[in-house]
């Protein structure tokens, strides 16, 4: 098998493993589906072009998320705005639904989005990397270039806040 075929196989494996989580991380950070798709595409194209340069295969996830994060902040810098979260998803949630005590997963999703919106950006980012991307504390600390202890503390705070607000409604 030639080098190009090997690269394509390796790329497909990495792509299938990370595509969904990465897409949601970007989407939740920007609240723009089309931009999220473009960024996802750019990240994977960059990955394909730099595959051979990434010697440490365990660092692929960190490389991909760091590149995505740079693209997200680059986009935000161009837009000169802070990340926003979808409003439209909340429109169909009625207060009575909460009182009924039975919240569908779709509605819970909207609730999570609205709660994420109130979180400080640094807590929100750690929460998204953990819950959506399912990365380890070490990987998150490498992506954000912060201590692992800080990752834990931000994540625990974000999760606690979210659970406190949502648990009353579940």
């Amino acid at each position, binding site marked *: 098998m030639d080098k190009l075929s090997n690269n394509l196989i390796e790329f497909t494996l990495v792509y299938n493993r990370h*595509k969904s989580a990465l897409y949601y991380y970007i989407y939740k950070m920007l609240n723009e589906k089309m931009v999220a798709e473009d960024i996802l595409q750019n990240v994977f194209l960059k990955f394909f072009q730099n595959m051979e340069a990434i010697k440490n295969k365990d660092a692929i996830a960190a490389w991909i998320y760091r590149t995505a994060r740079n693209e997200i902040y680059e986009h935000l810098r161009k837009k000169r705005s802070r990340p926003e979260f979808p409003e439209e998803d909340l429109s169909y949630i009625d207060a009575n639904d909460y009182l009924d005590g039975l919240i569908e997963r779709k509605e819970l999703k909207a609730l999570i989005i609205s709660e994420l919106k109130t979180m400080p950006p640094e807590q929100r980012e750690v929460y998204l990397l953990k819950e959506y991307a399912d990365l380890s504390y070490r990987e998150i600390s490498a992506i954000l270039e912060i201590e692992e202890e800080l990752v834990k503390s931000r994540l625990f705070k974000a999760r606690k806040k979210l659970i406190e607000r949502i648990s009353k409604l579940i």
Partner: protein
Amino acid sequence: MNCELYNEMMQQFHDGELEKAKEPFIFTHLAECEECREFFKSMSFISSSIQMEVKDFPQRIDEKVFGKIRTISDKNSLLFSPRKIPTLVSCALGIIIIIMSVFIFDSETEYKQEMHLALKQIRYQNEKINLLMNTMPEVRVRSKLSDATIIQGNRQVTQ
């Protein structure tokens, strides 16, 4: 230990980052504390909802990404693709440098041989001049015209 610490341990357990040795402490606490049980339940429920959402991935992105990858692969497979230009230029420069080195080495050897021959000739000529000078009589030259002998060597020869 208070619930706050157990909450943190529960989160680490949920994330698969808690030491095995600490796991029994959580289970014991969960059996005793209803509030923490609720916390754990909510955390798991939220995570599973998120994981279900993550499974829903737009297929059109796959087509877009692999379409681009195919284009890049095709470009890369061409010999004179823009990506290969720096490599080709480097190879060409390398070959030129090797040819120039061989040429310079060859010229240097030639010059060395010529120089050696020239030195040999000079040395031979020098020896010849020395030999010629030694066969001639001694000549003395005085500074003033009034002096009796200007060229002593000639007189000696005539005498």
